[in-house]
């Protein structure tokens, strides 16, 4: 059995009994039929792969039959191919001619993972997936052997979502590795992965994973439906999929959770969410996701509950700071001077003395400068990136203040805002605050604090109208659910958090039934 068969529960296709391969190639001009004649098959293959340099079709003899091994040299480990396939017929002494393909396999390649290909589509598909396909003259089926992968990136530490305490593994670009990373953590027969092949040109494997005893059927069907509807040319990263399946794209807020941490995906799966794994992307998606997911780091659960609860509040606060602080400065300094304490006002005024720009322009300039520096810092070669931050901090900040172009208060504000915007554990969420911040500054420049409030109210209205796979984006706060509050703003200790979030309508809403609050032994003894 092939590895993919082991990992994926093959989906029974609704369109009848056509295999996924047929479905994939149905729109393309490739003949379906697999011929008994080796020559014919070879010719078709050569026709199809004629311009590919890494395609090879090596003739071998299996006993007395003519055969050939076809493969993409770059997709498999060439050494094991030579060892396990090409050299085998020569070394194996065969007394009797094998009758059919099954016998051939049995005799020559008894230890290898295999699959039979009875259609030409399957042959092509297997070659594309890095199998070595052995076609034997006069046989109705071809034998596809799994050789083993080419070199791929080893499992490393996550680069974007680092934590201090907790597992240090991250997803890689290979879907099978990723799935095995999840399976390693959830050893549960009800953890199911279904595969889809998406992308007219790329045929990328996309797997949805869920725990069938927990995840709600409606959500699952919704996910399946949306994925099946996708018709795009290329899927190069999970971001491509994300864009196609969100409920509403005209929003700065991410409606799909993404992470490169297997432990985080596992906890989402166990809450009743669906994971979307895209081959070639180390970022795995989880749907439906809600606003509060973006403020939770998996580390929260690996530490005693008091600190994470505090940190979570800090995260919400810094979200607000990142969003509001610059506009608050604009509003207070240009509209509501009376709201500042006198001493503070005088010292801010003293610093602004001689600054030639209005506060709005000043802050826009600095925020834009900062965004440019940030972008440059990410794109620059790592060795140069350091320089950018030094240049940014020293030259732009210090020199601008000394030249009297910006006030030093403003530099503090911009820097603090920037730092606060990095606090969200999920990078894609900080993008929302970065974008909205500019709009908010505009509102503050026009209407002062009234504008800020106005914008915040509009933002909240927008947020509550959002849905992620039918689940309200602000679920468990609006609509309010008291039972879900154990893991929203605070993280209550694990023994108090017994229920899965109710907005996901899980099939089994209760995680642990027993009362497990730990207590010193003598209390139990006393009861006995």
């Amino acid at each position: 059995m092939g590895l993919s068969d082991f990992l994926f529960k093959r989906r029974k296709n609704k369109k009848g009994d056509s295999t996924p391969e047929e479905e994939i190639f149905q729109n393309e001009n490739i003949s379906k039929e697999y011929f008994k004649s080796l020559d014919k098959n070879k010719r078709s293959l050569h026709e199809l792969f004629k311009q590919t340099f890494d395609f090879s079709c090596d003739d071998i003899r299996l006993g007395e039959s003519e055969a050939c091994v076809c493969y993409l040299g770059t997709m498999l480990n060439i050494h094991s191919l030579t060892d396990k396939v090409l050299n085998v017929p020569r070394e194996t002494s065969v007394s009797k001619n094998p009758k059919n393909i099954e016998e051939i396999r049995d005799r020559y390649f008894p230890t290898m993972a295999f699959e039979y290909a009875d259609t030409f589509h399957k042959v092509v598909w297997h070659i594309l997936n890095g199998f070595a396909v052995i076609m034997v003259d006069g046989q109705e089926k071809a034998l596809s052997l799994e050789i083993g992968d080419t070199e791929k990136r080893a499992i490393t530490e996550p680069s974007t979502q680092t934590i201090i305490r907790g597992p240090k593994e991250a997803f890689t670009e290979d879907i099978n590795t990723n799935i095995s990373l999840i399976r390693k953590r959830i050893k549960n027969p009800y953890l199911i992965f279904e595969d889809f092949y998406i992308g007219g040109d790329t045929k990328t494997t996309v797997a949805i994973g869920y725990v069938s005893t927990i995840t709600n059927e409606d959500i699952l069907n919704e996910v399946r439906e949306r994925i099946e509807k996708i018709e795009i040319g290329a899927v190069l990263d999970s971001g491509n999929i994300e864009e196609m399946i969100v409920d509403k794209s005209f929003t700065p807020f991410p409606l799909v959770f993404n992470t490169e941490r297997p432990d985080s995906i596992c906890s989402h799966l166990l809450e009743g969410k669906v994971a979307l794994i895209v081959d070639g992307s180390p970022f795995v998606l989880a749907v439906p996701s809600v606003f509060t997911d973006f403020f939770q780091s998996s580390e929260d659960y690996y530490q005693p509950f008091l600190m994470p609860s505090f940190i979570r509040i800090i995260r919400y606060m810094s979200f607000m700071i990142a969003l509001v602080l610059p506009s608050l400065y604009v509003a207070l300094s240009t509209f509501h001077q009376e709201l500042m304490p006198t001493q503070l006002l005088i010292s801010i005024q003293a610093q602004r003395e001689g600054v030639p720009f209005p506060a709005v322009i000043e802050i826009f300039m600095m925020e834009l400068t900062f965004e440019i520096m940030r972008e440059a810092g990410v794109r620059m070669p790592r060795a140069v990136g350091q320089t950018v931050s030094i240049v940014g901090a020293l030259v732009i900040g210090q020199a601008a203040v000394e030249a009297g172009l910006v006030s030093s208060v403003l530099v503090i504000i911009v820097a603090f805002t920037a730092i606060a915007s990095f606090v969200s554990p999920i990078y894609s969420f900080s993008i929302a605050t970065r974008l909205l911040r500019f709009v908010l500054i505009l509102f503050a420049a026009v209407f002062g604090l009234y504008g800020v409030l106005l914008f915040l109210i509009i933002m909240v209205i927008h947020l509550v109208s959002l849905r992620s796979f039918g689940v309200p984006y602000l679920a468990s706060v609006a609509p309010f659910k008291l039972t879900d509050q154990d893991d929203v703003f605070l993280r209550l200790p694990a023994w108090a958090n017994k229920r899965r979030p109710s907005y996901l309508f899980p099939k089994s809403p209760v995680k642990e039934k027993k009362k497990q609050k730990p207590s010193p032994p003598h209390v139990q003894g006393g009861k006995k």
Partner: protein
Amino acid sequence: MKKRIFILICISSFLLTGCWDSTELNDVSIVTGIAIDPGKEKRYRLTVGYVNASILSPQIPFEGAPVSVMTLEGNSLPEISARMNIGVSRKLVFSHTRALYINEEVAKNDGVGSFLDSLERNPQFRNDFNILITKGDSAEKFPTINDPVERVPSLKVQKQIKSILKNWGGDPRVRLTDFIDAIVSQGRSPIASSVTIEGNPEKGKNVESNMETKAPARILLAGIAVFEKDKLAGYLSLEDTRNYLWTQKLESTMVTIPCGKHGEELKEKLYFDLAIMNNKSTIKTFYKGDQPHLKVDIYSEARLTSMQCNEDLSKKETYLDLEQKSSKYVKDMIVATIKKVQDEFGLDIFGFGEALHRQNYQKAKEVEEKWDEEFARADVDVNVHVAIRRSGIRNKSFLSEVPANKED
């Protein structure tokens, strides 16, 4: 999509036309002190002192005047302040006003009501500035007296008032709304703080004066100014101010009490000091027949801070004795103050009328119109209980251990 573009256009058109009320910080001057004098040609002469912020910046060394002053005449405050820009470059912002100096001439002859209305009406004016009646010099000099520690003069005055209120009680804690409430109220007469300049105000104007260790001019608090409705009626000394506050809400104060029995001829002038910490006072007004009675109950906790008397503080009896002495002393002080107010002004600054209003509404209605006369003829009864709690880190004074004089 068209709809979205339409909405975007609508929003942006709003955003582009906005900013009616925005003023850059560089375009405003923060006014901290306002002084009102009688005008020569027009009704008032208004002086505003506004902060020169760049001088106060920590990066720039000490130079230049921390505030600048502008004087203008006119008939009403809003009118004058709106015209200030004939000589001031920036828009004046009044929301951080810290002190309002009113020349006693204005207060005596014109009354303060007419301009207090414009202050109360304007949302820019907060309720946190001090109303100060200037004694002696004209009000316009006050916002200009420099101080080396607090470089903005009006901020200095406010801080000074805050501190004295906290430590000794020389300011009646009257803000704009309290003052206006008292004007309106039938059962209370308004009061305000008064200030004087000690030294030479002309020298104090000069920033150079900050270079001297002994300031050539200082603004001093000078007790209470008593008002009849909105007109100045007279002054009470600082001691009386403290005593007044004792009947109201005193935070803490210090009293010096002679050791000997009251009225007794003292051989030596010996005193003990009490720091008064917690005060509770209740005011009661009632009628016995037709005679109004004013009753004040005061309970104070005290800490002994100095002891010149030759008494043993390790004994309970000594405490009791001292408590009695001090209660008596404080009582006499407060009674004297009340009597003084009754005799000199006949104006109820203590709020006895309001107490009557709360306690006996019907009677209060009857006497409402002539309350000040009723107040003037009322009997005063003050009960003071001073409780001395502790005496610092020594019990007996070392003075009592000094060998006595051998003359006797």
